[in-house]
């Protein structure tokens, strides 16, 4: 594929509030290549979610340039270029699992045959739960349904905003493993927001370390861990070295504060 999937140049976003402007993003430069798994990591208020929302055209940058698939984020959104996974599952409670996953297909006027939906549920290991309502599933299962929903119309790009933030560590480990397998199998480009260092290092090919006030990028780390890794890799020196560098980056970001 020609050119990067996402390219941001000197991107800034200022929220005008009653007392003082808030610099949510300040001069952000970023490239995401096809097939990358990129994580944004940083403390709350560092603009990682805002950056993801700018990519998704849910917020608009104040200055600078950004392209998604070579287009403006708005054009990319209108062309339905990405699937978005929110912090909460945001399932529609009156729809069964099957009909929740079929929702984007219905809206886009695409074929929403049961087989197609079933294939997506298989990707997140939820086959057999088609007829359940969201309240009948655990939090982790609900979030997996929302991932299947984001994948339903087969977008090349998957944007994930702290999708596992509300889950306990055991479930989170398991879902990280599953997500990695899914990424490997589907060859999607993933942009992933997190505030967990092990999660970012384990999942990513590229880690973007961010810092607050103003929201900016401190460090970009290429990880180069083997592709078919398991959770055991978290004990290896390579893994720990990367985690250390992320932690140093986060610390450096904080030293600007009083």
């Amino acid at each position, binding site marked *: 594929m020609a050119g990067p999937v996402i390219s941001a140049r000197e991107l800034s976003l200022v929220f005008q509030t009653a007392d003082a402007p808030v610099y949510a993003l300040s001069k952000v430069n970023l490239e995401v290549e096809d097939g990358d798994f990129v994580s944004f990591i940083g403390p709350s208020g560092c603009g990682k979610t805002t950056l993801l929302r700018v990519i*998704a*055209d*849910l917020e608009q940058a104040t200055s600078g340039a950004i392209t998604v698939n070579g287009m403006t984020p708005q054009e990319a*959104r*209108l062309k*339905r270029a*990405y*699937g*978005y996974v*929110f*912090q*909460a599952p*945001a399932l*529609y*409670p*009156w*729809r*069964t699992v099957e009909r929740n996953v079929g*929702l*984007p297909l*219905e*809206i*886009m006027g695409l074929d929403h045959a049961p087989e197609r939906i079933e294939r997506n549920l298989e990707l997140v290991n939820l086959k*057999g739960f088609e007829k359940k*309502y969201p*309240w*009948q599933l655990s939090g982790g299962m609900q979030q997996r349904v929302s991932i299947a929903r984001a994948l339903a119309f087969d977008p090349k790009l998957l944007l994930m905003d702290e999708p596992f933030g509300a889950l306990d560590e055991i479930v989170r480990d398991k879902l990280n493993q599953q997500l990695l397998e899914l990424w490997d199998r589907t060859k999607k480009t993933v942009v992933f927001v997190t505030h967990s260092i092990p999660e970012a290092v384990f999942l990513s090919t590229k880690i973007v370390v961010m810092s607050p006030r103003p929201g900016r990028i401190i460090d970009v780390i290429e990880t180069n861990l083997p592709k078919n890794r398991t959770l055991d890799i978290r004990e290896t020196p390579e893994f720990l070295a990367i985690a250390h560098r992320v932690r140093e980056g986060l610390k450096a970001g904080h030293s600007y504060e009083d």
Partner: protein
Amino acid sequence: MSAAPAIAAKPAAREPGNAFPVAVVCLAILLVWYVAAIPMNWVVTGPKIEGAGGGLSNTLAFSWNEARPVLPAPHQIAQELWKSVFTVAPWSVKSLLYHGWVTLSSTLVGFILGSLLGIALAIAIVHVKFLAKSLMPWIIASQTIPILAIAPMVIVVLGSLGFTGLVPKSLISMYLCFFPVTIGMVKGLTSPEVMQLDLMRTYNASTSQVLWKLRFPASVPFLFTSLKVAVAIALTGAIVGELPTGAIAGIGARLLQGSYYGQTVQIWAALFMGSFLAAALVWLVGVAERFTLRRMGVKP
């Protein structure tokens, strides 16, 4: 059983001892009512009781069986209800079923029109910011005017246009009952969370898709709550609409005739008929609500 993980269904547990407190309250009301009938009817029954020589048994007998009492005893109302419901043909003007049906028909027409108007207004208000500011004050103002003041005007104006009977009564009903539906539906249509709305935005969904696939289903519980209020006041509207028209049929007409001729027992019987109708209508909306929500997979 299938292999799919079964969700253990809790047996629908009824609140224990629900009937007992209700019965106690009913008995207390009946007791107070019977006791109150004695002093309240004294104006009429006092001389008769004294003429008969006084005493407890005479007092009770006269106070509770007066033909034109100020406050009829409950059993007199029950007798009148029985007589005017079961002993006369349902299409006769003496039948409360007939009068109930006349009021019910304009209630239902008014309720359906009012609900549709209420939903339409709410959809307009939610989608057009300008309307939220310009329409809302008028909608609220419409409800501050006493219906008793407006009803005669509506009837006179429509009467001069050739509309009598069902139409003006239904319109008064509609005028009263669209309001809770509008308020409830504005709340319901704006109830989806930011994330659920953002999701639709990422799909580039059209406004009507957001309305039908998200806003409307999310508003259903709000809709039924307001429909329950609306159906009860639609009935009130229909009864009020019968008062200034000189209508000869309907619960309202029955109330009016009763007061002309001092037939307090008849007034009370008509009143009870109206209450039964209201209770039945609210109950029916409740049944429709439970059915719909179950179909929508709401957690029981």
